[in-house]
């Protein structure tokens, strides 16, 4: 079981990503509106104001997705999906995704059932 954390700089891609998660059987995630370090530095700290090096790597706002995923195969699928939709995350200003192992979880939503809609 892993916790996937993905910061997505292209906010407009979020619904496509979550739709793809559903396809993969990932039925739960928490999404938080967030802001990158470059943006904060260049806007809020006067000494860094307007520095293009920092601004070029940032967007006004990004979205951070947290999802506890119970199968490694789904994690691989999710990371592939993120890169299909957002482009190679190694490229600047696209985002970042990483996972950490989860040793205990309470309250994880089950896989989509086959009952009534």
């Amino acid at each position, binding site marked *: 079981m892993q916790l996937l954390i993905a910061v997505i700089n292209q906010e407009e891609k979020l619904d496509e990503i979550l739709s793809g998660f559903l396809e993969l059987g990932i039925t739960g995630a928490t999404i938080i509106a967030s802001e990158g370090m470059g943006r904060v530095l260049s806007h809020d700290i006067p000494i860094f104001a307007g520095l293009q090096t920092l601004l070029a790597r940032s967007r006004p706002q990004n979205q951070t997705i947290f999802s506890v995923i119970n199968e490694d195969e789904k994690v691989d699928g999710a990371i592939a999906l993120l890169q*299909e939709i957002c482009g190679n995350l190694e490229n600047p200003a696209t985002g970042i995704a990483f996972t950490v192992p989860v040793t205990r979880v309470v309250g994880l939503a089950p896989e989509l059932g086959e009952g*009534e809609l």
Partner: protein
Amino acid sequence: MRLREYLRPELIVLDLEARNGAEVIQTLVRRMAEREAVADPAAIEKALLAREAVHTTAMGNGVAVPHATVAGLDGPVVMVAVARDGVRYGPAGLEPVRLFFVLLSPPDRAGLHIKLLARIARLVRHPGLVERLEGAASPDALLRDLERIDAQHV
């Protein structure tokens, strides 16, 4: 999740003509029944119209995905229909719909229904999909195009 597993050439319609949403649903359900894909067209038409009454399934990009769960099906049924002249579907102001994906599932396959909806919703964002499918010369050609696009996505 691959859509191609649920696509059948006899459920591809290239010549849909209708004046409004109700006619679209009536025509497509009748075609499904003619191809023996469904047994109770009246119930299906009612279920699809009920779903549209909740919220339109037109996505605003020339695509609509009428869908419902209905009893009596063995598994999901997917129909793809092209209306080259476009049909006014859903609220005024939306782009006319030229491509319909109709999805029906048995009530006890809600999970699969949602996954298929999600797959369709993602595939229809593929750049140029509508133009490519409406240019298909035959149901088999449309299927091949759609399968190629399906295979390009995770």
